[in-house]
């Protein structure tokens, strides 16, 4: 302990006041000389001679001082500091190299880190539930193999027949209106089986979860709230437990509060949960047989998911009379069992994986570029190192020097990279498609950052060490002369290969970006079937209790429309039960009297729009045949339907559908009279611009089986639609202050949002592709410059022998373009192979789209010519006299 302290203390004081340490040594040496002189004087020598002899014997003061100084540990620190100073000086002296290398590192590492940081928690980090790997979702499987939402009837059967699960729960989206407080609000909620929180493995932090009795139809109403909601609306007090709140006009008793930070992965914005209270063994036309539930189960401990899969497949294929199924939930195509994480990320997975691939490629390019830059630099410095070796520098010292330089570069680049990564993560979160899990957990990932930093640094160190290793004493002459004597040779091969790689990788990224951008373009060029300019939309909720009659509801919406129409700047307004491109999806099977043998649902489903009469005018949906809905379509009149063009063609081909009798959805069991098709209107994209299913029917809200408690108000304005929001909202509230208004958006915003995952991928690909293109250009410039510098003498001789400037320029360009061409060839092959990753993100364009490839090749070619142009000009400008004389 004491010796160690002494070591440190003496070392540190020598480090900080080297002069004092030296002075002590000097004193001691001088003391030596004096003592020896005196001794010699005593032996009879005169003072002068004695001093001279003593000085000779003791030796040089400086040498002794050096010796003493070099013996302490602080000397190592000193050397390191001087290495660092020297390295920084070298880097400063070559600012272009330093800047390009540091920026390359920053872009490569930063972008890769940002991407991995964002994707890791979303795709791979375990969900924040105990035993999350045992939680699976179960969906119906459509004929295409795609998942479809299951019915409650299916849940009932599976929950009773399956033995693979500890617990199984069904959930249904729920958007209750919270009233009775200062501002009415439409909440995001879920109705769930009593076992739901047990299935997730997380119980309320305060209060309790639901019990089975509360899940029975007609039981007392209870709710569990999120901590977020309690804080936002109820002052954050736990005393809310046991009190009553008003949802959809009914009192609900609050029985539990979830912990802060708890997220319901199945529906991340959920703030309130209530028991499902579904009807057991419901009739086929009941809500319980609709495809709008989700089933989530917790596997028995230690049970493999494949065992559960097989069991459910067996159940699906063997119906029993105890659980009669309906036609549209017959489970003929089996069930789809997926891990919860896989399920919730399924939509974003292709985009995220494509983006990860892009990041990996960019990191590769950065590595290649750093290698390239260092290689070129090391060639320029061969003379320096040969000289230093010749002057006696140990190889160890040279290696150490270069290591210091590489590490300094890595530190500078790494610091910049961290900034890039921070900004990148922020941008990614902002851009990410909605509904992803764990997005709020996205931070710069230390592991990913370290990984990128280490890879690039290792590459840098390996490549950077080459000049030191080759600067052995033996080839000092060659090394020093090499600079001027080199004529064209095979030296460029390694660097050439690197540039070829870069060009190939850049091409792959550019092709990906090109395909994505063009897909997005084409997608946004698709007509949604409605006019989107100057249309404001918002949901208006009328959910005031179960005693509210349809007529009261109709009256409210009617009055609201009148109030909105009176707002200055509003040209027209209407209500609809479902709004195109908003995420709504409400579809029903149908039967036409002309084809009685077809079962409802057999021809697929048609989307239902219960609308007020002016809807078509507000949205600009064209009438193709027959008439629109009007005042005559009252509740007591026989129902009239409009059908979409695609439903008309799909059912009647070219025949006239007007006057055909039809039943939709719950009416198709035959208990109600047939309705009549009175008109055909244009197709509208409901789910997204890319969706192909546009079969739809329209009915007057008064004539449908129920009046929807949630309707979307659509308003055509004379000026900017978004600016009218407050005036329209005030108008609705002037009728009834207690009606929540939600999801305010202009139609243009909704169209813009429908491309969000494609936009996410194409912004990232685009950014990466541009970065890759720049890096490749820098690499190409560096290599060709290097070659030109080495061949200065050759160019001198050639121009002395009569070569024109044009010939020399062409020669150098050809050299650079050869690399480019090989790179492009490899890149095209690579792009063909890898764009399959992007398939699901492409729209209206093939992964092998020739014009995209041609465009990218042309772009890359022009950039390559630009990058080679400056060095080529330099080669042509070589003055033969100067070159030859300098030999």
């Amino acid at each position, binding site marked *: 302990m*004491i010796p160690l302290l002494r070591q440190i203390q*003496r070392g540190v004081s020598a480090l900080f006041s080297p002069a004092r340490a030296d002075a002590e040594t000097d004193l*001691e040496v001088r*003391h030596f000389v004096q003592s020896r002189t*005196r001794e010699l004087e005593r032996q009879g020598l005169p003072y002068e001679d004695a001093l001279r002899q003593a000085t000779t014997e003791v030796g040089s003061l400086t040498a002794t001082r050096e*010796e003493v100084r070099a013996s302490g540990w602080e000397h190592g620190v000193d050397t390191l500091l001087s290495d660092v100073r020297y390295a920084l000086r070298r880097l400063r002296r070559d600012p272009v190299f330093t800047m390009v290398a540091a920026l390359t590192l920053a872009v490569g590492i930063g972008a890769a880190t940002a991407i991995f940081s964002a994707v890791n928690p979303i795709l791979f980090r375990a969900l924040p539930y105990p035993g999350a790997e045992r939680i699976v979702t179960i969906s119906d499987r459509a004929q295409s193999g795609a998942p479809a939402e299951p019915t409650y009837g299916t849940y009932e059967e599976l929950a009773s027949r399956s033995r693979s699960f500890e617990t199984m729960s069904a959930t249904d989206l729920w958007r209750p209106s919270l009233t009775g407080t200062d501002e009415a609000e439409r909440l995001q909620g879920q109705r769930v089986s009593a076992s739901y929180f047990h299935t997730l493995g997380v119980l309320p932090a305060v209060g309790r979860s639901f019990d089975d009795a509360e899940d029975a139809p007609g039981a007392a109403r209870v709710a569990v709230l999120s901590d977020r909601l309690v804080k936002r609306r109820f002052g954050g007090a736990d005393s809310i437990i046991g009190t009553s709140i008003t949802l959809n006009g009914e009192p609900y008793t609050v029985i539990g509060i979830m912990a802060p930070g708890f997220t319901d992965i199945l529906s991340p914005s959920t703030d309130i949960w209530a028991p499902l209270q579904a009807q057991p063994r419901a009739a086929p036309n009941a809500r319980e047989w609709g495809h709008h539930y989700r089933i989530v189960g917790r596997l028995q401990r230690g049970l493999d998911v494949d065992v559960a899969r097989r069991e459910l497949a067996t159940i699906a294929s063997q119906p029993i009379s105890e659980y009669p199924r309906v036609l549209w939930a017959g489970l003929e195509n089996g069930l789809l069992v997926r891990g919860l994480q896989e399920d919730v990320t399924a939509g974003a997975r292709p985009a995220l994986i494509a983006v990860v691939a892009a990041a990996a490629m960019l990191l590769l390019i950065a590595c290649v570029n750093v290698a390239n830059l260092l290689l070129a630099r090391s060639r320029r410095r061969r003379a320096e190192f040969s000289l230093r070796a010749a002057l006696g520098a140990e190889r160890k010292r040279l290696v150490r020097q270069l290591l210091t330089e590489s590490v300094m570069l890595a530190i500078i680049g790494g610091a910049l990279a961290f900034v890039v990564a921070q900004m990148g993560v922020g941008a990614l979160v902002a851009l990410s498609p909605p509904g992803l899990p764990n997005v709020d957990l996205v931070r710069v990932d230390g592991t990913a950052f370290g990984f990128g930093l280490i890879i690039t640094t290792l590459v840098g160190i390996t490549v950077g060490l080459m000049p030191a290793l080759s600067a052995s004493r033996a080839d000092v002459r060659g090394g020093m002369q090499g600079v001027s004597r080199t004529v064209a040779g095979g030296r460029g091969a390694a660097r050439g290969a690197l540039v070829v790689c870069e060009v190939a990788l850049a091409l792959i990224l550019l092709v990906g970006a090109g395909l994505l951008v063009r897909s997005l373009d084409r997608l946004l060029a698709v007509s949604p079937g409605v006019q989107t300019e100057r249309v404001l939309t918002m949901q208006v909720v009328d959910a005031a209790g179960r005693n509210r009659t349809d007529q009261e509801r109709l009256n409210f919406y009617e009055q609201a429309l009148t109030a909105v129409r009176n707002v200055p700047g509003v040209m027209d307004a209407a209500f609809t039960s479902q709004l195109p491109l908003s995420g709504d999806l409400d579809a029903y099977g149908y039967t036409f009297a002309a084809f009685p043998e077809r079962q409802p649902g057999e021809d697929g489903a048609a989307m239902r729009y219960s609308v007020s009469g002016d809807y078509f005018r507000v949205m600009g949906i064209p009438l193709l045949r027959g008439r629109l809905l009007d005042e005559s379509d009252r509740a007591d009149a026989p129902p009239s339907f409009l059908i979409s063009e695609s439903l008309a063609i799909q059912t009647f081909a070219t025949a006239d559908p007007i006057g055909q009798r039809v039943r939709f959805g719950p009416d198709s069991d035959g208990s109600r009279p047939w309705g009549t098709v009175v008109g055909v209107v244009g197709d509208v994209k409901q789910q997204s611009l890319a969706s192909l299913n546009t079969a739809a029917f329209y009915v007057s809200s008064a004539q449908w089986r129920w009046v929807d408690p949630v309707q979307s108000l659509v308003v055509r304005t004379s000026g900017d639609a978004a600016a009218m929001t407050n005036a329209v909202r005030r108008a609705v509230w002037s009728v009834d202050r207690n009606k929540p208004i939600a999801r305010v958006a202009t139609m243009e915003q909704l169209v813009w949002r429908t491309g969000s995952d494609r936009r996410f991928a194409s912004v990232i690909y685009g950014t990466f592709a541009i970065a890759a293109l720049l890096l490749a250009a820098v690499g190409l410039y560096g290599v060709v410059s290097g070659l030109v510098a080495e061949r200065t003498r050759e160019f001198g001789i050639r121009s002395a022998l009569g070569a024109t400037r044009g010939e020399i320029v062409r020669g150098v360009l050809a050299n650079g373009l050869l690399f480019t061409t090989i790179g492009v060839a490899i890149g095209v092959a690579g792009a063909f192979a890898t764009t399959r990753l992007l398939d699901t993100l492409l729209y209206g364009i093939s992964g092998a789209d020739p014009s995209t490839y041609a465009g990218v090749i042309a772009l890359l070619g022009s950039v390559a010519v630009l990058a080679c142009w400056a060095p080529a000009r330099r080669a042509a400008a070589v003055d033969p006299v100067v070159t030859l004389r300098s030999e």
Partner: protein
Amino acid sequence: MDEQSTDVISGTLDMLILKTLSLAPMHGFGIARRVEQISRGVFKVNAGSLLVALQRLERAGLLDAEWRETENGRQGKFYSLTRAGRKQLAVETTEWDRKVGAINRLLRTES
């Protein structure tokens, strides 16, 4: 001096310093002089190596150092053995005896 003096056998300088100081505290020149005297001029101590060794031993806590006035009225750095130094000397002496014994046995073995 009849015979040529040589540098101290490598690795033994520390031990010689410790031994010398075990008799009395001394300054650098004194140590060098004493080693030469006792070895009857066989070993000669180079000032540089001595100072490096002294600095090392002092930092290792085997010696204490103190600036004091010398017999001729000048400032000199006096070194003295610490307790750890004394222990180290014993260890090194034993080790040295062992090695020398072994070497002697090897050299005297009749072939």
